């Protein structure tokens, strides 16, 4: 049998469906079936969280589970799982994922639809309208899969936390034991007096946001317990051009001698250095190191990610060569003032 916990929220009822004691995915589906069949009267906006425990569930099973719950007229809440494969499948399915149920269950409170129009948002995402008489700010959805939201670049300051993560606590992963401790500096502190002269060039052209599905990046990188001292020294050196569709993942630093074309992806536990133009997606400090940096001769990246920060390039046509292209000097992107900012490392001559 399955366990059910009920939690009355201000904005509706949430239910935790515990299927962790099911022996396999077929039994899990059956439990969900029983649960749905047992629902006599579904309260409005019923939120169903699922605890899958250490069950290994494929994406197909999750799709089925989600459909069963949606068919019953309820909304899918958070998926709790301790199995990386299940977590990944749930992420692929567009669900909120947490590593495990820590202590007492407190359902993730997503703002419920205020009206029909707003109700069209998928349940896995924070609603975009703001409360009160303030005008709603425009968000640029980053991707329907990650559910991350980006603030409009006209509001470059980090959004108030209740805007970015409506009524939900900071992702628990940040406090999890396996997470890299941020107290110990891994890389030498950046000292503007002794380092090369730098000028901030375009912090505003990249729109920054923190992602909520940070766990997916960490899982992608495999072992989250990787020794920090090791990641700080291990370096992957590649002498090639990365083309569209090609990806490089490494637990330490990555150096690429060549260009990284649009459509390529670089993910590193440490820093990323591209001795050429960076036009693809670069994710430095993938284990959560906010001090990681991305350096390139020219940063024209589609997206820059450092730890759980994401910044994207503004929408514009870019293929025409800039007359001042030859004046470009090496650039570095790092997290500063809760934003990803790009600095020129040398002032251009002429």
């Amino acid at each position, binding site marked *: 049998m399955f366990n059910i916990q009920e939690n009355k929220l201000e904005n509706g009822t949430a239910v935790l469906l515990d299927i962790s004691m099911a022996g396999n995915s077929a039994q899990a589906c059956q439990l969900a079936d029983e649960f749905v069949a047992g629902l006599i009267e579904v309260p409005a906006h019923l939120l169903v969280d699922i605890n899958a425990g250490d069950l290994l569930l494929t994406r197909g099973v999750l799709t089925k589970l989600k459909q069963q719950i949606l068919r019953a007229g309820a909304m899918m809440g958070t998926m709790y799982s301790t199995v990386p494969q299940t977590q990944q499948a749930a992420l692929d399915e567009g669900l909120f994922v947490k590593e495990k149920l820590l202590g007492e269950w407190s359902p993730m409170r997503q703002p419920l639809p205020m009206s029909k129009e707003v109700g069209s948002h998928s349940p896995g995402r924070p609603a975009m309208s703001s409360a009160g008489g303030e005008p709603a700010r425009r968000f640029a959805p980053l991707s329907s899969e990650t559910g991350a939201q980006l603030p409009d670049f006209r509001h470059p300051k980090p959004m108030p936390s209740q805007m970015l993560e409506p009524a939900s606590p900071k992702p628990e992963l940040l406090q999890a034991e396996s997470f890299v401790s941020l107290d110990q500096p891994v890389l030498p502190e950046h000292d503007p007096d002794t380092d090369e002269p730098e000028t901030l060039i375009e912090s505003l052209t990249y729109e920054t946001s923190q992602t909520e599905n940070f766990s997916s990046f960490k899982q992608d990188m495999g072992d989250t317990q990787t020794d920090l001292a090791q990641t700080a020294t291990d370096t992957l050196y590649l002498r090639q*051009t*990365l*083309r*569209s*569709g*090609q990806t490089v993942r490494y637990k330490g630093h990555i150096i690429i001698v060549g*260009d990284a*074309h*649009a*459509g390529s992806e670089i993910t590193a536990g440490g820093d990323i250095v591209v001795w050429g133009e960076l036009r693809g997606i670069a994710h430095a400090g993938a284990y959560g190191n906010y001090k990681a940096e991305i350096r390139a001769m020219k940063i024209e990246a589609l997206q820059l990610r450092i730890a759980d920060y994401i910044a994207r390039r503004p929408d514009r046509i870019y*293929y*025409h*060569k800039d007359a001042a292209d030859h004046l470009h000097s090496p650039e570095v992107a790092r997290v500063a003032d809760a934003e990803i900012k790009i600095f020129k490392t040398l002032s251009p001559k002429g």
Partner: protein
Amino acid sequence: MSKLAKSKNEKGRVIVVTSGKGGVGKTTTTANIGAGLARMGFKVVLVDTDIGLRNLDLLMGLENRIVYNIVDVVEDRCKLSQALVKDKRMPNLALLPAAQTRDKSALNEEQMKSVTDQLKEEFDYILVDSPAGIEQGFLNATAGATEAIVVCTPEMSSVRDADRIIGLLESKEEITNYKLVINRLRPGMVKTNDMMDVDDVLEILSIKLLGVIPEDQDIIVSTNKGEPIVNTDSSLAGQAYRNIARRVAGEDVPFLNLDMPSSWLEKLKGFFTKSA
């Protein structure tokens, strides 16, 4: 036949024509480079691997001569020589047609490789027309090839797909040489900055250029007639394809000036600036 033709023990070159994106002119390029090489006296065979959506036969005007196709060959219903369709204009040009009633899974990479290996013995050039996409059809088309011609148009989507394809070609050890053909360039639009120019594309893709084909209405006419445009001497696109064929054969041909003066006034201007 010709003094250019290969000696007995020399094997032919297998060149795959591919693009990633559909509709950029892979088939037109295959037909015209093939016909161009055949005009120069080489023995050429065109292989259509776009099973289920064959077009190369239409472009060559050979649709009604097809009896057997490449799937019949690999499934042993006929000999390879029986499936080859001889071109009606040039005796040294042949076509190995695709099956229209099957799909890409009717062929696999080993079968394709054995077909190209057999063709290598007889022909100087084996041009393989690849279907769009990066799935089985693409894998089949590149299976026996040692060289590749990547076709793209000066559009972002096409260039991005070409980049992906080049990445896949680079990861294949057998393919040692790949070059780019930029198709459907409109010099007028480039001038007004409405289209990427050749340098823009080359900078993004960082690959060697084989040739540039201007947008030309005559291509549509030639496709409908089933007559490759290389055989039309007056056409600029035909000239561009003839030059590409010569470059494939190893000749050093300067790139065409596509920015042709359109009116007599501009021609006159050009005359004066040249003499000045």
